């Protein structure tokens, strides 16, 4: 079952970051193990003498994955828009994972700047993947600005806390049943990713939980399994919680039954 992200049909529900791995070789192995079709990348200042970015780019091309450039670290609309323009030129894609950071400790999105930058970039032909919160009003404004995908955080970037606001994420899913929703950031464990998919989210984007694991390749596999498991759970329509027990073994015909059991 595929998911439509703007003009592209994607099969894998796992989007993976390319930062923080012990080595480029392990990064490539982890990407392969994740079966992700999309990897996030960024832009940084390049030195004419070192040219570190050129080696990285050759590794990413070898992975065969589609790239989703981010605007990580941008704190203003202007910075984010210019970074997106540079990313479009260098990566030759209209996709941009739009981040406008509003607070240093939590790396919480500046949702006001985010909406404004999303509008500017959409009008300029970009296909924006906005890194946002689970706020319903902000989500509506992002869609009005032209976003066809929403990427609410699970928890602060790199925190590994999982889904901080399950109620809010569930509400977002319910309010926007036809918009692709991707939980982005804060995932620490495969169970967190599975929980996001069990809520009906379309995909999960994460980086640190794999890259900083003791065995990133094995962790990538674990996340791939969890994400697939959560997706199938949602499709299978799980039971509702209840407060009291309900016997699974049929009661009718119970041996030794008598009125005292009633």
């Amino acid at each position, binding site marked *: 079952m595929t998911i439509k992200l703007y003009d592209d049909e994607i099969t894998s529900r796992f989007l993976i970051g390319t930062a923080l791995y012990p080595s480029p070789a392990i990064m490539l192995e982890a990407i392969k193990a994740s079966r992700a079709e999309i990897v996030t*990348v*960024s832009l*940084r200042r390049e*030195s004419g003498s070192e040219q570190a*970015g*050129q080696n990285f780019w050759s590794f990413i091309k070898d992975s065969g994955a589609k790239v989703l450039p981010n605007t990580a670290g941008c704190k203003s609309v202007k910075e984010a828009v*210019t970074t997106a323009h540079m990313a479009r030129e*260098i*990566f030759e894609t209209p996709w941009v994972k739009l981040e406008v950071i509003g607070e240093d400790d939590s790396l919480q999105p500046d949702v006001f700047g985010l909406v404004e930058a999303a509008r500017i970039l959409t009008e300029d032909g970009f296909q924006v993947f906005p890194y946002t919160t689970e706020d319903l009003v902000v989500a509506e404004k992002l869609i009005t600005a032209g976003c066809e995908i929403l990427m609410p955080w699970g928890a602060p970037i790199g925190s590994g806390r999982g889904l901080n606001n399950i109620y809010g994420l569930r509400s977002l899913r319910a309010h926007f049943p036809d918009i692709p929703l991707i939980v982005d950031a804060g995932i620490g464990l495969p169970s967190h990713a599975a929980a996001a998919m069990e809520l009906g989210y379309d995909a999960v984007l994460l980086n640190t939980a794999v890259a900083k694991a003791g065995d990133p390749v094995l962790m990538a596999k674990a996340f791939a399994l969890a994400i697939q498991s959560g997706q199938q759970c949602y499709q299978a329509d799980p039971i509702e919680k209840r407060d009291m027990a309900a016997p699974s073994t049929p009661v009718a015909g119970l041996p030794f039954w008598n009125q005292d059991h009633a």
Partner: protein
Amino acid sequence: MNILLNGQSLETQAGSLSELLTEQGYGSAKVATAVNGTLAPASMRNEHKITDGDQIEIVAPMQGG
């Protein structure tokens, strides 16, 4: 003239953005450029004149989450 290249003060004789990239050893590297906060497209680097005090960013693909 003096410019700010990737946040560092630099004395340069380059007249255009293309000349600056050559002067600073970028060669054919895959980079994007911005001048004074706005994209300077690769296709315009020959024509893009550098003036004293310009703030120039030269960026390349990098790991990201």
